[in-house]
């Protein structure tokens, strides 16, 4: 099946070709119909530039962009049939919700009756039918973003592009809106590409997550494949693998803080054969109620650990157990550019 969106060696340099800055370099990507893809990375990783190139607001300086199998590299945004949702919502403040949602259909010169009907349906999809005659300024941030979603969906776009749509919302609403976003995408069967710097968002929403750094692809795949097995130190760090210890008998490895086990130096449990044992000294304890965050100094560097009890104090000698199946071997020892 032809990918809905395909990037072939796409790059973008800001400034002149000679001394400009590469925002995106040589990016390949294929997005399958009906899937949810997230572009994940820290600010400046090129994820928004990539999305804006797919939308047509920025022209790639190298490579090709194919939409529905045809070369769209030079097609202006208004002829790409994309539905875009912006971080700032970008609703038209002088129009009612119905007129906002119907804007794309009017631009396509659909008959007024059809525009009204489909705008109504799109508003219903996001649960805002009752506010159809209001102006965006009368709505809360969460409601405005639902209107923006309805407006993008109403044109039945070939791809829904979402530029950090949830980052202006407060934490509770953000989690709610994720569900909403996923529901709308599933119900409409639309192909969606979402840009985010929030790994939780990416893990929850993605069929495919694409991790970018410094304009380059670091790793991509299904979250259940990527999360337990980050390919390199950058991805590991970004996904919250806080520890990069030197473990005797291993190359570069990483382990999540919640997988590091601490036990008393003398009376603690026996080391199982499936764990690597290290010795260390507690450096600091941060009390978090249900657990403690404990930093332990070892010969192989500092290890951060999520510990279920509050039974260790700074200065205490401890044994550290690293379950072998939780140690993830990394492809690189070095810290990639931009990770610091």
């Amino acid at each position, binding site marked *: 099946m032809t990918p809905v969106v395909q990037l072939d060696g796409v790059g973008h340099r800001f400034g002149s070709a000679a001394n400009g800055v590469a925002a995106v370099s040589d990016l390949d990507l294929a997005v399958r119909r009906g899937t949810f893809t997230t572009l994940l990375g820290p600010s400046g990783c090129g994820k928004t530039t990539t999305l804006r190139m797919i*939308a*047509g*607001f920025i022209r790639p300086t190298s490579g090709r962009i194919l939409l529905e199998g045809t070369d769209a590299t030079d097609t*202006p*945004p*208004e*002829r*790409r*049939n*994309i*539905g*875009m949702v*912006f971080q*700032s919502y*970008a*609703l*038209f*403040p*002088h129009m009612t919700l119905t007129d906002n949602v119907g*804007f*794309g259909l009017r*631009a*396509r010169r659909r008959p007024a009756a059809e525009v009204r009907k489909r705008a109504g349906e799109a508003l219903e999809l996001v649960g805002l039918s009752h506010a159809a005659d209001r*102006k965006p300024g009368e709505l809360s941030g969460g409601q405005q973003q639902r209107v*923006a979603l309805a*407006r*993008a969906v109403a*044109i039945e776009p070939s791809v829904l*592009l979402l530029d950090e749509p949830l980052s202006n919302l407060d934490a509770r609403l953000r989690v709610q809106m994720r569900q909403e976003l996923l529901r709308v995408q599933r119900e409409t069967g639309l192909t969606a590409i979402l840009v985010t710097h929030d790994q939780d968002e990416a893990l929850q929403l993605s069929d495919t997550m694409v991790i970018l750094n410094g304009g380059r692809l670091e790793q991509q795949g299904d979250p259940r494949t990527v999360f337990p097995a980050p390919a390199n130190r950058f991805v590991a760090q970004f996904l919250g693998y806080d520890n990069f210890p030197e473990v005797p008998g291993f190359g570069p490895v990483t382990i999540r803080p919640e997988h590091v086990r601490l036990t008393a130096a003398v009376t603690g449990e026996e080391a199982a054969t499936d764990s690597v044992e290290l010795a260390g000294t507690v450096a600091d304890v941060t009390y978090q109620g249900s657990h403690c965050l404990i930093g332990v100094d070892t010969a192989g560097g500092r290890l951060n650990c999520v510990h279920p009890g509050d039974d260790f104090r700074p200065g205490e000698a401890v044994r550290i157990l690293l379950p072998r199946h939780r140690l993830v071997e990394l492809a690189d020892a070095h810290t990639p550019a931009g990770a610091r």
Partner: protein
Amino acid sequence: MELTSRNTVRLLLLPGLAVLLFAFLYPVAATLAAPPDGDPATVARETGALLTDPNLLPVIARTIRVSVLTTLICLVLGFPTAYLISRAPARWSGKLLALAIFPLMLNTVVRTYGWIVVLGGNGVLSTASQALGLGPVQLLYTETAIVLGLVQLFLPLMILSSYSSLSQQDPRLEDAARGLGAGPSRVFRQVVFPLALPGALVGCTLVFAGAVTAFTTPQLLGGSRERILSTLLYSRVNVSLDWPAASAVALVMTVLVLVVAALSGRLSKRGSTTS
């Protein structure tokens, strides 16, 4: 807390209000109540005469024509310029804006004499036209000359007012409209312009009021042949020393400006209730 801050705001209004009261409202009221060299009845009679005198009606018509034309040309030239400045990269927009308002820093008399050099019988334009075999052009002392001079004088006001509205627009609105399938013209007509209408209307009001009341430019470029109200007012005061008639002219000018200001305020309000 709320009350204190509101009182502070009111206090801040006082100096401006005081200046307006003593420098504008008081003289206007005084002129109408007890005009120099006459009484209110005389001014009323003179106003009636001005509005019915077949020799003076063309002056009123010309004033309105020149001012409306100046306003429209300023809008057509100024709004797109303001749009381009507001969408230019930040490091450019400041410089471009300074360039646009630079003419404001020149003395009106100097600037107007510049136009005389360009438009006069032996001026640049006429010489060029003769060189092309088109014969001499006499633009000086015509309505066209007045409009040209006024457009140049007031264009910066239109650019500044439009810019203030345009620069506050979220540029993502245009992206959103384009993404939804709107071409450049639809984006402009349905998103950019309606949202910047308040600024454009303020610009129109300023330019219109300025054009109605401008004196140097119409006096030097229109001469005594193409009189408008402001130059008429001057001759009533300084040449014929007819103070009641001058008061009548001033009254008509003030009403003209107030009507347009009210009209623009109404349009702007309608714009904001639909926005």
